[in-house]
């Protein structure tokens, strides 16, 4: 009889430990998962940037989107202005024909490729398209090669 009582006590004790581990473990996992948001209220990655007439020949910066618009005659391209090293906004240096990063000194040439580190990846070019009503549409989710550009009739 004593043995039975003892084993029931042990059984209940074990149940208690399992329940405690489950509760603490489950809540820990839930809390970590809780910290990872499922809905973001960030600006969309696809957006309109006006018409080609808004962009004169050369390099233009859209500050609230942190992208550069490069126009050469009728062709238009969009380049990310976010340094691939650690995310500072690069600056277009007209006289040296290149982008420079103020934080750690990375340099990108006019094709977005790395001329000088610490950055190791080139600045990405984004897909530019035209909506039906003739507005330029940039999609940051689509990264394209430098050779691809949108040609617009003017």
């Amino acid at each position: 009889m004593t043995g039975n009582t003892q084993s029931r006590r042990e059984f209940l004790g074990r149940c208690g430990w399992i329940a405690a581990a489950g509760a603490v473990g489950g809540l820990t996992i839930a809390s970590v998962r809780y910290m990872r948001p499922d809905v973001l209220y960030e600006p969309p990655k696809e957006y309109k940037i006006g018409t080609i007439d808004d962009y004169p020949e050369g390099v233009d910066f859209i500050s609230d989107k942190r992208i550069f618009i490069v126009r050469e005659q009728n062709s238009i391209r969009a380049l990310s202005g976010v340094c691939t090293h650690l995310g500072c906004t690069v600056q277009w240096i007209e006289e040296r024909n290149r982008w420079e990063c103020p934080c750690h000194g990375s340099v990108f040439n006019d094709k977005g490729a790395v001329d000088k580190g610490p950055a190791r990846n080139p600045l990405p070019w984004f897909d530019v398209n035209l909506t039906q009503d003739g507005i330029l549409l940039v999609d940051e989710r689509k990264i394209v090669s430098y050779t691809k550009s949108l040609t617009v009739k003017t």
Partner: protein
Amino acid sequence: MQGKIMKSGLKDILVHNPIRESIVRAEIHPSEWIKSKVLGLGMLNAFLFIVLTLTGILLMFYYVPGTEKAYRSVKDIEEVVSFGIIIRNMHRWSAELMIVSVFLHFSRVFYMAEYRKPREFNWVIGLLMFVCVLAMGDTGYLLPWDQKSYWGMTIMSNVISSMPVVGDQLKYLVLGGTEVGQNVLSRAYNMHVKILPLVLGILIGIHFWRIRQDDRLAGSSPAETTPSSESSTGRYDVQTIQSIGWLDISKRELSKCLLVLAIVMGASLLFNAPLEEIATPSVTPNPAKAPWFFLELQEMLSWGPTFFWAVVLPGLVFLFLLMIPYIDRGAIGTGVWFHPSRRVENILFTAFAVILMGLIVVGKFMRGPAWVFYWPWEAWPIP
């Protein structure tokens, strides 16, 4: 007879701490005990923690942790709240002083080899506290939501994402999104004002408790290993100890605190805590510099692969520091400044400290636009 009762009563209160027992046995005068505490930097750090807690609570009455209002509320604290600027300055300067004095405390313990058995674990606790202090500095400078905050956080989040495999997921978790915005501000705020102070408070408690326990285990301490011939002759009677003993210790400690408070207040009256322009995602200041205590990391970041220079190397250095008491099993020279038998160790540690400070100085004074090297007296080109 009465003296004897008093004596044993006191002895119980003091929990058999050998040094304190020696005080009770009237072998060591309290002032000698206090001298054995060397520089009092640990106590100073605890005091700064209290100052930071109190000024931090005051700041929280006006500060709003929202991207729209954070910067404005800090400006309000500086410009329209009575004495607000003094409180903010005190918070900032005591935080920076704490980083310095924590580092000095750490150096002092190394140079005296006091991390050795039985104090290994307390050395580990101490280093964890150092990390906590740096994490509080880090989350703290995000809160004003000025340019330094914004770009500091941007760089930090990309350092995190440079880690292989888990990098991007971890960055998402830290930022609470893909961009530096409201979620990361809320996260930094809650870490800074709740979680980290709680963790640091608990670690301070363990650190203090271990000092006592370890003194007991060691059965000796700096004062006892180098006793002056006079102090062991019992020239102080119990009456003297009772009248001046703990009162004397308390007064000495409190007056040191008062001195430090005066220095912090003086600095707060003379110098304002830095506050840059409001956070502007489209404009990166050139050069964009981290606060001085992270400049050594930023300087190393400019050298090459982010993951190596900002995560692997500092991580290895930290691991090595953690392991020092488990590597150095010697016993000679414990509790002695710069003991000759520890020349190599002391030279290595000094080199480490000098390199660290050198990197900070280079980052602070010799890096111009685009992180190009300039001598301090050279003018930067105007873009």
